[in-house]
């Protein structure tokens, strides 16, 4: 398929703007651009066809089952989109006076209130634009907390070895380093190892619960207490909140701050890699350090008005301009309002039901890492199959592509060799799960019979396996 640049024809164009209705001012010669601007020259018909063809070569939740572990690819409600497209929201300038943006401020205020309720936190910020951004903000809050107490020796963040790769990178961005503690044989945090790892240099501990193996850390109260006793704070990575939202609150588990992935748990679309939103919530002890501005409610002449407050002298400042990805926050709010107090836990329960049902079906052939029930996701390992038959997690994933199913997450968590992490989410029907299981099992049996055959897959997708070594050795990053 051609690039836009290859379809370009000199002199072709759309007619978007009228002529200038005021005298033209030119840039003075010394400041003017010298190299001509070369962008594709196309008609609108060209553009329309180009992007339609690109759409056919992509795969969204609308195209089929998307069981990506830790990504929560649930259905993205269309009413969220129509609300976020209302001109009454899209036409609002972030710096227009607070009195003229009461709708936007109300949305932020309500989202704050509802998400604090769901997470058991006291205050929220919607400024971070993604999970990693939220994590950075959370660690900054913890850093500031210790700084304000004059305790500058706390430079270690403890994480379990099953954690996401962002954790060490985030710690490094905050001048801290990471202490990895190995998980116990059940995949959960080893309390003895945790006790040995804490000390005067412990700034905090980062955990997701359920953990990345899809198991609920039943010792969570002990874990968070150990950290608090050592003078550290507990940070909750909200990537796996979908299993417990409306049922268990991170605040009750002993966490002092959380980040949420609104584009996972709260149904906002992934957009091919963004925009998302990494809202961060915290308990009162960290509230003074949240980024500015924060939305407040005041009474004026018998009426309630929302306004933005900037006067927080201990705030960490800003992690992004304005108030974050507002339309994404709005979509999440719309979702929470739709589901409400019964719909939120119902969604969580059904995500766990679907995961356990699918896990049971797949366990006919596949080795599941944990015993007993899982939460909203589970991990398979192809370690034995790789040794005995010569096919890997990657091979299973590529074979699924030919069946229109997006593969599960591959090779994560790092502590499980040849891992496939499966998360169906609550929005899939029983028959989708039955059909998917059939395909997973069929692929497995075919691979056992003919391991060579699976290496050449996929065959029916727009391209075959790409040469990633060539892409990295000889980078071609633009046309």
């Amino acid at each position, binding site marked *: 398929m051609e690039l836009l640049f290859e379809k370009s024809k000199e002199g072709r164009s759309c007619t978007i703007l009228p002529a*200038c209705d005021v005298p033209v001012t030119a840039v003075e010669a010394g400041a003017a651009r010298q190299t001509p601007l070369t962008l594709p020259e196309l008609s609108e018909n060209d553009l329309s066809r180009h992007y339609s063809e690109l759409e056919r070569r992509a795969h969204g939740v609308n195209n089929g089952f998307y069981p990506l572990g830790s990504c929560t690819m649930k259905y993205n409600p269309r009413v969220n989109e129509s609300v976020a497209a209302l001109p009454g929201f899209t036409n609002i300038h*972030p710096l227009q006076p607070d009195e003229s943006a009461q709708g936007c401020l109300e949305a932020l205020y309500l989202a704050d209130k509802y998400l604090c309720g769901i997470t058991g936190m006291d205050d929220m910020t919607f400024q971070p634009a993604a999970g990693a951004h939220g994590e950075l903000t959370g660690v900054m809050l913890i850093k500031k907390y210790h700084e304000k107490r004059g305790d500058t020796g706390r430079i270690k963040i403890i994480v379990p070895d099953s954690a996401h790769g*962002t954790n060490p990178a985030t710690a490094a961005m905050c001048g801290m380093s990471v202490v990895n503690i190995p998980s116990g044989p059940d995949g959960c945090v080893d309390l003895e190892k945790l006790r040995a790892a804490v000390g005067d240099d412990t700034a905090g501990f980062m955990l997701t619960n359920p953990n990345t193996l899809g198991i609920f850390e039943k010792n969570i109260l002990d874990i968070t207490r150990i950290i608090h006793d050592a003078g550290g704070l507990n940070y909750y990575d909200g990537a796996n909140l979908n299993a417990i939202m409306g049922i268990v609150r991170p605040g009750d588990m002993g966490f002092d701050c959380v980040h949420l992935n609104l584009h996972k748990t709260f149904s906002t679309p992934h957009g091919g*890699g963004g925009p998302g939103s990494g809202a961060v919530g915290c308990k009162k002890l960290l509230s003074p350090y949240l980024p500015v501005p924060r939305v407040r409610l005041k009474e004026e002449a018998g009426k309630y008005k929302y306004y933005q407050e900037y006067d927080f002298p201990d705030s*960490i400042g800003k992690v992004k301009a*304005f108030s974050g990805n507002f339309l994404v926050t709005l979509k999440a709010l719309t979702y929470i309002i739709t589901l*409400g*107090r019964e719909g939120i836990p119902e969604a969580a329960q059904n995500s766990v039901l679907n995961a356990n049902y699918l896990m049971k079906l797949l366990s006919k052939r596949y080795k599941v890492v944990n015993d007993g029930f899982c939460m909203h996701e589970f991990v398979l390992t192809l370690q034995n199959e790789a040794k005995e038959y010569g096919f890997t997690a990657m091979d299973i994933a590529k074979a699924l592509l030919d069946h229109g199913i997006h593969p599960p997450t591959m090779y994560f968590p790092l502590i499980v060799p040849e891992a496939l992490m499966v998360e169906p989410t609550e929005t899939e029907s029983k028959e989708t799960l039955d059909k998917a299981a059939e395909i997973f099992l069929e692929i497995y049996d075919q691979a056992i019979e003919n391991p060579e055959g699976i290496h050449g897959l996929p065959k029916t997708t*727009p391209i075959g396996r790409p040469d990633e070594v060539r892409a*990295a050795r000889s980078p071609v990053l633009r046309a």
Partner: protein
Amino acid sequence: MGHYLSSTQSQRREMLDALGIDSMEELYSSVPRELITKNGFELPEGKSELEVDRLMRNMAGKNTQFSAVFRGAGAYSHYIPAIVGTVVSKETFLTAYTPYQAEISQGVLQAIFEYQSMICRLTGMDVSNASVYDGASATAEAVAMCRDKRRSKVIISSAAHPEVIETIKTYCWAAGAAVELAPSNNGATDLAALESMIDDKTACVHIQQPNYFGIIEDCERAGQIAHASGAKFIMGINPIAAAILKTPGECAADIAVGEGQPLGMPLSYGGPYLGFMAANSSMMRKLPGRIVGETVDTDGNRAYVLTLQAREQHIRREKASSNICSNQALCAMTAAVYMAAMGPEGMKNAAIQCMSKAHYLASRLEEIKMPLKYGGQFFHEFVTACPDDVDAKRLIECLGADHGILGGLPIEDNCILWCCTEMNTKEEIDRLINVLAENLAEKGGRG
């Protein structure tokens, strides 16, 4: 209550039976009883779609949509071609995940590759990443790219957007790096002062072009000063202005960053926006975030893939220069469609109109005794001083309350930061002047 579950009650019953349990609660048997919350989480009852639509429309109705916008300051009101909205609301682009499985993600990967290519051409740089969260955080990330063991001091122009400065300060505080602000003079960065501040510990110098006050800076000279001391030069640019102003490439910048919102994203009360980052080839491996590269597949067909992943956090972990995982993919696609729809002539035309209309407004404001505060050349934003007996904030308030006009942003010293884009017609500008003139005549807008 509202829900998006597909399985029926009886199907859920079947699944519970298959698992050998009676109720959903049993699935949570590994959770300590005391953690299961009894209360309703302070959420209201769920709603049907019709009720949600009504409620949210009501909420949107509490915002004022101004009929004419003369305010920029980091968020700009531009015309968005209709094709842009059509493309980015395609369901597959909207709901797809990050394109890690290249075989079924060529559509998204190619769209991002095209975006990267366009950003390179717009900025005159060699390589672009797939985007980051916004202009402010992009600038903070660019600063981090330049710091190393030997050079950790960072110099930012005080004429940059205050929120960009604030964000850089926050990121640098977290990393333990010093930030110094180069002073401004007559609305532009004081290059003589910059020269005296810079030393061999300076990692980078950042200038915004045009700057917060709308002034066109002498970036070539700023870059020379930076390089003479071995520091890197970061230019934060406006992507519309880039069509007619000297590019970062032409100014020998090491890194170009900026806020991509003007490229087809609505104002949206501040987000989602788009941070673009482009660099010269020697800094390629320091760029954070995702990058799409071209390669071939097993049959030799051209293919696109996320590449140079060893830069990124999931591989390099604590040695990564950033923890960023995601890009603003759909916003990057928005920018690409916008630039393709406008084409090179449309982009130039938009820039010329922005600049021309701003100059027209400035000359008319001068007629009513609101002259330019600064003397330098400006693009589409400029600052006017108010007469002493006029309160800038009140003046702007009247415009909004009584006339549906969002006037310029009141800033310090009783000044106003105005902005014009191709959206402001001559009639609109003339009407603004008439309203202002009336207000000024009535004892300086106090009333």
